[in-house]
C-alpha cells in the first residue's frame, strides 16, 4: 500500500480535518506539559476505577462524538438543501451518513447514557462503587479506543460507506473493497466488548449492592430502567458480536456466510443485525425514560405516579423488543403471515409506552412544578416523543410500510424518538446531575436559550421530513432534481438544523461560562432531590458514603429529610476501596493496535496487538490486588472538611 492510499487525499474538507487534528493534538500536549499535568492526568483519570470519574469520562467522550456526528449532519444538510449542489461528492456523502449514524448511536447515545448511569446509579442505590470496578475501566477504555479506531477512518484509509446498517452484499468485499468497512466491523467489535461488560457489571451491581432496606421495589426509577437495559444488553449484544464476526470472516478470510455466491445468505445479516438492532433502540431509550422519571418527579415535587405500572411497562417493552425485529425489513418480501405477526407485536409496544406517557402526565398533575432547564427538556420530551411513537405505529403497518420504508418519513420517525427521547434525556440528565459532578450548576438563562433554540430547531428540521417522505424523497440520496419539488421543505429543514447547532454551541458555552462564573454549590442537594445521590456531599468523596444509608421506602432521601430524627449517630468503620490500575488502558491500546492491523490486513500487527491483550489478561490473572482500607481517622478527617 502506498502512502497516498493510506492517508485520504484530494478533498479540502479532509485536509482541513487533518490540520485541525494535528493542531488540537499539539495544543493538548502543549497545555498538559506547560501546566505539568501529565502525572495528574495519568494517576487521577486514565488509571481510575472510580465509577464517578469513569462516568464523567464517558460523558466527555460522548459530547465530543456528538460534535463529530453533528458536523457530519450539518455537512449532509448543506449538501441536500438545494438540488444539484456539489459540496459533497456521492461517495463522500455516503461515508458521512454512514459515520453519522454509527457514531450517533454507538459512540454518542449509548456512552452518554452509560456515563450518566455510571455516575448516578451507584449513588442512587447507596453503593461505594460498582461490583467490578476494574472491569468498569476496561469497559470505558475498550469503548474509547473502539470509537477512536472508527473515527480515524476518515483521515486514514477512508470511511465505511454502506450505511450504519451495513447491509450485504453492499458492505461485502466486492462492492465495498478496502479498509472502510473493516473499520466499522472492528471499531464496533472492540467497543461492543465494553458495552457487554457494562451490562454484566451493572446487572450485578444493582442486584447485589443496594443499601440495606432498598428492596427491589424501592429502587429509584432510573435504577430500574438501568437494570432492565443491562438485561437487554446482555442478551442483545452477543448477537451483534456474532454478526460482526461473520462479516469480518467473510471480508478478511474469504468465508461465505453472508455472500451472494457459494451458498451464503445475505439476508442473514439483516436478520441478525435487527435482532440486535431493535433491542438496541430500547437500550438507548429505557435509561432515558428513567432519567425523565427522576426529573419529572423531582420538579413536580411529587412521588412518581404509578411506580409499578412504570416498572411493568418497561419489562414488557423489553420483552417485546425481542420479537419485533422484522419490522425493519417488511419489504424484504417475507409472506403475509410473517409480516402480520411482526406488525402486531410492533404495534403492541405502543401500549406500554402509552402507559408511561400517562404516568408522567399524572405525575405532573397537581404537582408544584418548578421549571428548570432539566425540567424543560423533560417536559418537551413528552409531546415530541409521542409524535415519534405515533409515526412508529404508522410504520408498523406492514402494508403501509411499503410506502414509507426508506423514505424521509422513516428518517423523521427515528429522529423524533432518538432526539426527543435519548438526546433530550442526555441533556436533561446532564443539567440535573451536573452540580453533583462538578460542584456548580449550569446557568439557567443560557440553558433556557439553548433549550428553546434546540427544541424549536429540532421540530423545524424534522417535522417537514415527514412530508418530504410522503412526497417520495428517499433516504440516503446525495442529490435530487428541481423537478422533484423537494427544495422548499429541505430549506426549512436546514434552517432548523442550524437552530439545533446554535443550541448545542450554547450548551457548550454554558459549560464554559458556569465553570468560570457560576456560584459554587456546597449543600449537596441543589434541587431538593428525592433519591440517595443527593444525600452525599458535593464534591462526592471517593468512597461516596461514609456510612451506608438505611432505606425505609421509595424516595429514600425525601424520607430522611422529612424525618431527620432517624439520622443515626455517626460511627465510622474502615472503608474498603479498590486500587487504580493502568492495565485497562494498556489492554485497550493493544486492542486498538490489533484492530488497526486487521483493518489493513497487516497480520503481524494484528497478532502483535492480540499478544498484548493476552499479556494483559495474564498479568491480571496473577494480580492478587485486593484493594485497600481507608482508616477511620482519614474518613473522619474527610467528613470534617465538608462542615
Amino acid at each position: 500500500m502506498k502512502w497516498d492510499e493510506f492517508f485520504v487525499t484530494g478533498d479540502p474538507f479532509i485536509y482541513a480535518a487533518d490540520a485541525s487534528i494535528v493542531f488540537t493534538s499539539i495544543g493538548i500536549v502543549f497545555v498538559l506539559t506547560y501546566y505539568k499535568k501529565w502525572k495528574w492526568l495519568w494517576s487521577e483519570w486514565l488509571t481510575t476505577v472510580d465509577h464517578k470519574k469513569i462516568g464523567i469520562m464517558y460523558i466527555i467522550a460522548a459530547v465530543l462524538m456528538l460534535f463529530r456526528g453533528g458536523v457530519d449532519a450539518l455537512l449532509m444538510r448543506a449538501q441536500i438543501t438545494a438540488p444539484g449542489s456539489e459540496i459533497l461528492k456521492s461517495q463522500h456523502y455516503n461515508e458521512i451518513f454512514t459515520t453519522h449514524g454509527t457514531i450517533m448511536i454507538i459512540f454518542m447515545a449509548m456512552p452518554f447514557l452509560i456515563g450518566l448511569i455510571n455516575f448516578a446509579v451507584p449513588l442512587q442505590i447507596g453503593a461505594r462503587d460498582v461490583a467490578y470496578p476494574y472491569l468498569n475501566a476496561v469497559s470505558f477504555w475498550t469503548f474509547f479506543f473502539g470509537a477512536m479506531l472508527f473515527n480515524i477512518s476518515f483521515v486514514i484509509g477512508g470511511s465505511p460507506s454502506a450505511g450504519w446498517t451495513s447491509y450485504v452484499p453492499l458492505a461485502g468485499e466486492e462492492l465495498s473493497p478496502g479498509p472502510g468497512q473493516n473499520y466499522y466491523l472492528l471499531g464496533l467489535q472492540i467497543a461492543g466488548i465494553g458495552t457487554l461488560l457494562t451490562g454484566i457489571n451493572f446487572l450485578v451491581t444493582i442486584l447485589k449492592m443496594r443499601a440495606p432496606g432498598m428492596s427491589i421495589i424501592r429502587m429509584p426509577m432510573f435504577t430500574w430502567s438501568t437494570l432492565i437495559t443491562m438485561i437487554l444488553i446482555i442478551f442483545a449484544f452477543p448477537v451483534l458480536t456474532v454478526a460482526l464476526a461473520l462479516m469480518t470472516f467473510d471480508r478478511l478470510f474469504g468465508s461465505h456466510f453472508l455472500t451472494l455466491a457459494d451458498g451464503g445468505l445475505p439476508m442473514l445479516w439483516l436478520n441478525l443485525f435487527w435482532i440486535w438492532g431493535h433491542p438496541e433502540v430500547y437500550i438507548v431509550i429505557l435509561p432515558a425514560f428513567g432519567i425523565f422519571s427522576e426529573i419529572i418527579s423531582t420538579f413536580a415535587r411529587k412521588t412518581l405516579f404509578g411506580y409499578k405500572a412504570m416498572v411493568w411497562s418497561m419489562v414488557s417493552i423489553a420483552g417485546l423488543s425481542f420479537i419485533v425485529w422484522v419490522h425493519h425489513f417488511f419489504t424484504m418480501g417475507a409472506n403475509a403471515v410473517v409480516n402480520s405477526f411482526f406488525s402486531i407485536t410492533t404495534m403492541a409496544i405502543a401500549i406500554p409506552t402509552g402507559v408511561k406517557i400517562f404516568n408522567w402526565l399524572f405525575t405532573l398533575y397537581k404537582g408544584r412544578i418548578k421549571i428548570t432547564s432539566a425540567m424543560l427538556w423533560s417536559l418537551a420530551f413528552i409531546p415530541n416523543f409521542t409524535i415519534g411513537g405515533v409515526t412508529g405505529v404508522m410504520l408498523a403497518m406492514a402494508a403501509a410500510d411499503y410506502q414509507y420504508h426508506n423514505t424521509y418519513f422513516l428518517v423523521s420517525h427515528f429522529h423524533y424518538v432518538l432526539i426527543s427521547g435519548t438526546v433530550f434525556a442526555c441533556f436533561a440528565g446532564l443539567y440535573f446531575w451536573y452540580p453533583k459532578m462538578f460542584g456548580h450548576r449550569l446557568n439557567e438563562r443560557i440553558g433556557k436559550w439553548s433549550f428553546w433554540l434546540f427544541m424549536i430547531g429540532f421540530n423545524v428540521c424534522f417535522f417537514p421530513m415527514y412530508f418530504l417522505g410522503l412526497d417520495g424523497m428517499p433516504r440516503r440520496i446525495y442529490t435530487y432534481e428541481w423537478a422533484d419539488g423537494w427544495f422548499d421543505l429541505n430549506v426549512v429543514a436546514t434552517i432548523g438544523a442550524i437552530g439545533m447547532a446554535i443550541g448545542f454551541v450554547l450548551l457548550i458555552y454554558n459549560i464554559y461560562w458556569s465553570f468560570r462564573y457560576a456560584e459554587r454549590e456546597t449543600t449537596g442537594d441543589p434541587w431538593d432531590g428525592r433519591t440517595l445521590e443527593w444525600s452525599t456531599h458535593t464534591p462526592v468523596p471517593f468512597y461516596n458514603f461514609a456510612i451506608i444509608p438505611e432505606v425505609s421506602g421509595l424516595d429514600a432521601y425525601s424520607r430522611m429529610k422529612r424525618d431527620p430524627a432517624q439520622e443515626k449517630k455517626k460511627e465510622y468503620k474502615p472503608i474498603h476501596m479498590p486500587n487504580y490500575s493502568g492495565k485497562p488502558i494498556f489492554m485497550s491500546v493493544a486492542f486498538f493496535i490489533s484492530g488497526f492491523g486487521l483493518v489493513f490486513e497487516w497480520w503481524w500487527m494484528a497478532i502483535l496487538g492480540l499478544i498484548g491483550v493476552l499479556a494483559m489478561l495474564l498479568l491480571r490473572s496473577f494480580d492478587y490486588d485486593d484493594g485497600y482500607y481507608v482508616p477511620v481517622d482519614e474518613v473522619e478527617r474527610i467528613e470534617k472538611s465538608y462542615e
Partner: protein
Amino acid sequence: MAKKCSHFPWQHLIGFLLSIVLTLVALWAGLYSGFSMTIIIVIIVTLASVQAIIQLFMFMHMTESSNGKHQTHVMIHSAFIAVILVAGTIWVLSYGFH
C-alpha cells in the same frame, strides 16, 4: 473458591481443551468428512449443544451459586432468547422466499 485446595484451574483448562477439540471436529465434519448435508448438520448441531453444556458447567459457574433462583432466572431468559433467535430466524428466512 476456598473449598477447593488446588489453586490450579483444572476445570477451565479441561473445558477449554474440550471446546477446542469439539470445534475442530465440527470443522472437520464440515470441510473434509464428505458426509451428506443432513448428517453434517446433525453432527454440528449436536457438537454445538454439547459444547454449550460444557461451557455452562466449566466456565459459567452453573453449580456454584448459593441459591438457585438467579440461575433459574438466567437460564429461562437465555432459553427464551435462544428459541426466539433460532426458531425466529428459520421462520423468517424460510417463508416467502424462493
